């Protein structure tokens, strides 16, 4: 449920290093988050080119029962967003680590993602 090759945040987001020189990372929400939120009906994401600040909200997830902030796990520039979520927000529920990804950021500090939790630390945070 929590892939080993990702890093994680306390806001229940995962971060995947795309293994490119500029350190660009892909961001989505975890299995725990999608299950807790219930059916996601609308996703608001930052624009490509927007500057986002690590730990700050930069979008919204609307589910049946609630609206939740999307956070930027790292500071940087948005280089891609998942346009498929515009018409198929349910991908976040059905495939949170794959087709349900949300956006990509080129971090100001290419090593920033490495400072996030590994899978074991994230799972531990869920238990506490």
């Amino acid at each position, binding site marked *: 449920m929590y892939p080993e090759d990702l890093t994680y945040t306390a806001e229940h987001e995962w971060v995947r290093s795309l293994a490119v020189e500029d350190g660009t990372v892909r961001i989505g929400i975890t299995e725990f988050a999608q*299950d*807790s939120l*219930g*059916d996601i*009906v*609308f996703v*608001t994401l930052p624009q490509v080119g927007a500057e986002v600040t690590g730990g700050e909200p930069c979008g*919204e997830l*609307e589910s*049946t*029962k*609630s*609206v939740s902030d999307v956070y930027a796990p790292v500071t940087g520039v948005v280089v891609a967003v998942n346009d498929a979520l515009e018409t198929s927000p349910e991908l976040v*529920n059905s495939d949170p680590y794959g087709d349900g990804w949300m956006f990509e950021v080129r971090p100001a500090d290419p090593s920033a993602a490495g400072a996030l939790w590994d899978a074991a630390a994230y799972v531990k945070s869920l238990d506490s």
Partner: protein
Amino acid sequence: MTSTASVERRTPLDAVHDALGATMTDFAGWRMPLRYGSETAEHRAVREAAGLFDLTHMGEITVTGPEAARALDHALVGYVSKIGVDRARYTMICDENGGILDDLIVYRTGETDFMVVANASNAAVVARELLARAAGFDTVVTDRSEEYALLAVQGPNAVKILAPLTDLDLDVVKYYAADRAVVAGVDVLLARTGYTGEDGFELFCAPGDAVRLWEALREAGDGHGLIPAGLSCRDTLRLEAGMPLYGHELTTALTPYEANLGRVVRLDKPEGFVGSEALAAREKEGPRATLVGLRSPGRRVPRAGYAVLDPETREPIGEITSGAPSPTLGAPIAMAYVPLDRAEPGTRLAVDVRGTAEPVDVVALPFYKRA
């Protein structure tokens, strides 16, 4: 995202919900199923086929005896003594100021026997008020919430599912009627009531029979699209149907007139009732605000507590009481209290959605009416 109640009451179906993998939630001190899988799928099942609900958290209070009807005429805003035997009626209990303490369904189960069904969050208050208000009448008020489990089968296939399980002719059980019946070998009070905007039944049974009844209903519903349905879809179903929820559309700060439910207040009763003077005055002067339906042309959802704004000046003029993405309409819908001069369907308003004024349009309630 998970909540722990200080006092957690469990329904007799608690283990069944866990076995189904339900997401459980605390609701008024009860551990209740929020959803079993996708709440949108559960919502659609109720609209298109059928859903099975555990509603054991609802409160049941019986009022019996020679003056039971008179006592309820005094205690509630409705004309309870006019309810026919085996019929039910939607009504309210108000305080001396006309403020709503709860909305209720009263079932007349016999000439001198009534069952009052209250919301879980208000069951204790209603029981206490009924007891106090019945003083001086020849009647006995008993909180029987512990003695009943409540299951509901809601949706267009409800009759097809229930009919093979009972000898009772369901055609004679009209909307808002109720009758004693045996369903799958279980003694129930079978009522054609609900909170979804669909045809359906509510079945009150002994807690010890609840699992057996649930399993029988699931089996009977297998070929008819019946799936277990949780409180999450119940909320979007009732919202689409324009039905108020206590604590949202109904509070002690409001009278039935603001909620467009003045028809439940029977000022024509021969004797006064608790709140009648205040309610007569409010009826005469008119409500101060009114409940409307709102539909958003956008996709961000107006939620309970958000401010309704004048679309030009951005001044707050009201408040959202409930809001959700409507699975049936495919758009955000909400109910809100607004000034009377902003209540006409077609009026453009705005809602403060987390700091941004999003346009909404006043629309007629209900949002959804079954064919």
